[in-house]
């Protein structure tokens, strides 16, 4: 933490950053929230620990529009998220100073966050400065996905339909997702009405399928969609299912390489046709 504050002070002093996006502990409530730190601000409130769950990358586009240089504190997963944004020309890397911090895992509701289970790296794949350790981790397990895959189709649908039914279409999941940045989301488009605007099972199903599909190969599993969902819809599960799919089918883990194009726009003549067919093992 000391090292981080020191680094940030240095960056401010050198004029390398205008603002730094980080985590602030509210002295009153003790809650940790995303916050934009400015030069003359005390950095004492800045924290980095297991309470820093939120992915800050989502705020970058707004900030880079207002400041020319933005520093950002990144966990491993957030860094993956940033990588996916860079490759899609969402943010100009020159405007970013990426402060990778060795992440020891975060906690949601007092428990280790689910997303940390399959985390591939403690350190952001994109960094300008690295603070703390870099630990590469093993291949993903996707144990929760596998649990679902063991169910019969009807059971699976029952499981998801119950959640889809509850969706209020508040779009918190979309709004917090760095990768959901369409100018006009397909869910907001009136003609053709691929997704009807009203919150009902059929339209909600369309919404969740499309949300998950659009993130396939782009989602870096920051898990924010699920965390912010007021109805606790297991969106990470769907994201993970597709993360597992792109890993198995194309050998890709999104966000691990800031140069790597999303697998769904990569031309591959070598894919076997079997990927389109039948039950997968």
């Amino acid at each position, binding site marked *: 933490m000391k090292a981080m504050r020191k680094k940030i002070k240095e960056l401010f002093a050198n004029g390398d950053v205008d603002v730094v996006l980080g985590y602030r502990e509210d002295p009153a409530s003790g809650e940790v929230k995303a916050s934009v730190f400015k030069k003359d601000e005390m950095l004492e409130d800045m924290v980095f620990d297991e309470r820093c769950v939120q992915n800050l990358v989502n705020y970058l586009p707004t900030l880079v529009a207002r400041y020319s240089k933005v520093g950002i504190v990144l966990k491993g997963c957030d860094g993956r998220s940033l990588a996916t944004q860079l490759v899609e020309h969402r943010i100009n890397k020159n405007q970013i100073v990426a402060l990778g911090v060795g992440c020891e895992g975060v906690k949601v509701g007092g428990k280790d966050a689910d997303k940390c289970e399959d985390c591939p790296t403690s350190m952001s794949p994109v960094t300008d400065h690295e603070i703390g350790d870099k630990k590469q981790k093993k291949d993903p397990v996707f144990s929760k996905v596998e649990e679902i895959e063991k169910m019969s189709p009807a059971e699976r649908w029952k499981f998801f339909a119950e959640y889809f039914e509850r969706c209020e279409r508040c779009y918190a999941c979309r709004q917090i997702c760095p990768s959901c*940045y369409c*100018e006009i989301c397909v869910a907001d488009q009136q003609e053709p009405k691929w997704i009807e605007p009203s919150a009902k099972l059929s339209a909600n199903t369309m919404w969740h399928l499309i949300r998950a599909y659009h993130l396939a190969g782009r989602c870096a599993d920051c898990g924010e969609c699920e965390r912010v969902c007021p109805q606790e819809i297991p969106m990470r599960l769907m994201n993970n299912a597709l993360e597992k799919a792109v890993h198995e089918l194309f050998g890709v883990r999104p966000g691990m390489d800031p140069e790597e194009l999303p697998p*769904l726009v990569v031309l591959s003549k070598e894919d076997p046709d079997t990927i389109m067919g039948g039950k997968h093992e």
Partner: protein
Amino acid sequence: MAKVGVFVCHCGVNIAAKVDVKKVVDTLKDMPEVGFAEEYKFMCSSPGQELIRKAIKDNSINRVVVAACSPRMHLPTFQKALASEGLNPYLVSMANIREQCSWVTDDPDEATQKAIDLVARQIKRVVHQDPLDDIYVPMTKTAIVIGGGIAGIQAALDIADGNRKVILLEKSPSIGGRMAQLDETFPTLDCSQCILTPKMVEAAQHPNIEIRVNSEVKKVDGYVGNFEVTIEKKATYVDAQKCIGCGICQEKCPVKIVPDEFNAGLNTRAAIAIPFPQAVPAIPVIDPEYCRKIKEDKCGVCAKICPAEAIVFDDAPKQETVSVGAIIVATGYKEMDPAVYTEYGGKKYPDVITGMQFERLVSSTGPTGGELKRPSDGVIPKTVVFVQCVGSRDESKAHAYCSGICCMYTAKHTMLYKHHVPDGQGYVSYIDVRAPGKTYEEFVRRAIEEEGVRYLRGRVAKIRRLQNGKYRVYTEDTLVGRAVHVDADMVVLASAVEPQKDAVDLAQMLGIAYDADGFYTEAHPKLKPIETASAGIFLAGACQGPKDIPTSVQQGSAAASKVLALFARDTMVKSPQIATVDPTACTGCLTCSYVCHYSAIEEKEFGKHRVAEIIPGKCQGCGACVATCKGKAITLAGFSDDEIYEEIVSCK
């Protein structure tokens, strides 16, 4: 909304036998979109089309659905009918109730029900169809001919004579191609060089032809009428502008160990050399692999001696992009390396040579100055065996196809041999003789009957080098049914005709199809032998398949006529069914550009944002970008989301 005219065709009994056409009309005429509904025996006939025209006039319908055969068959017919009445031709849609309904359904009730559904769906769809205007794109009336062999030269000359500019691209230092290496040509035995050189010179001097040697295609963008071809000129280390072609450099160059490609590797040449005396242009090229100055920074004799100071040791490859309207591919062939035939000792035995090597051995410009001496010891070969079909018609070892020209050139070789060595004996091992061209058969007969060449029917099993320096050729004579062997001084293998090594790379750059062997595929084997599936790209010569000189020349001229016909127009008409980006909805992620096969998507400034833009001329309308765009900022005219959505949801 909209007022749709619905026309259901009986197609004689083809549809009406299964589908209750009247019921289809009766069921659909009350749909709110339908303003007119009618059935007719043959909608594609003149009276059928007249029905449409009349309904447009009298019933002021503004959309048309024709339920008949496949749109692949008659859509253009009905589009014309609409256009003739002033209605935009893209406001018609066809319901395929013949190929996809009446012809594939057993039960008449089911067929009728399906037909109703199919037509209703098209009615819903057609309402969403937009009027589209054909796109006219200007055309660059310059052609590029890739490959400066005889086919390419002929094509270039014909186009140039038609008063259009041509770029003649050749990857080697001189145009001329394979024909320049040949001694005499069948079936007339006229001197190859003598008939080719004037053409080469004519091409060089033609004001409409720009010859670019030492150059290769690196990239092809664009589309018919507006190709952008990136050409790379290799480093030659000689300034072509300054060089006067005196040849003193190649004389003085101390490195004389470079295998001479022109002579099929039979001798060596200097590291700086003009490829052959009649080369066009007659400018030497330094081979950097061998040049001591370039490799070791020693020597540099050529530069010192060059009267024109044309040597540039720090030359580097240069890329340039040229705009052309049409492309002729005339990259020719290469002779197969017979090394796979280890039993023939190709490559191992110095006197087992290929057909092209034989050409060079008998050529007056060849390594021996036209005297036929065998490579190993310079002895004049008294017995020569010519082996046909080496690599051709032999699927197990090389190619299944027939190389087409070997029967004839082997016959020619035997004659040339007899002319050089009148007391020599030639043998030909053959499977059967294919001589279908004009006076070809007579030519072969002349070899056998007048020159006394012995034709042995059968495949050579093995060639063994004997102690005495002779080569024992084990073969058979199937006509008499026994194994024979011939002890020869030299063996000539009629090695197969193969596509160029980089043929597939070029095909992929051009986006043209190629067959399993690597020869380029014509658009139609009979009716479009010159065209490729890609508009504006034509084929000439042996790159499309083995060919002799007359056929190559014919194809060169044919391709030129295609190009000239294309250039007779000032603009190109392009289908308007292309994709467009709504810049207000685009986020500028540009992922669409990665899936575009035609590089048609570029970046553009839109206000403060960066957005994707589709170049209308380049877009071919495949829709890959549309499916990639998550925000649906891209619309493909003719296959918009609206139209497809309506088709999906309006099926009952």
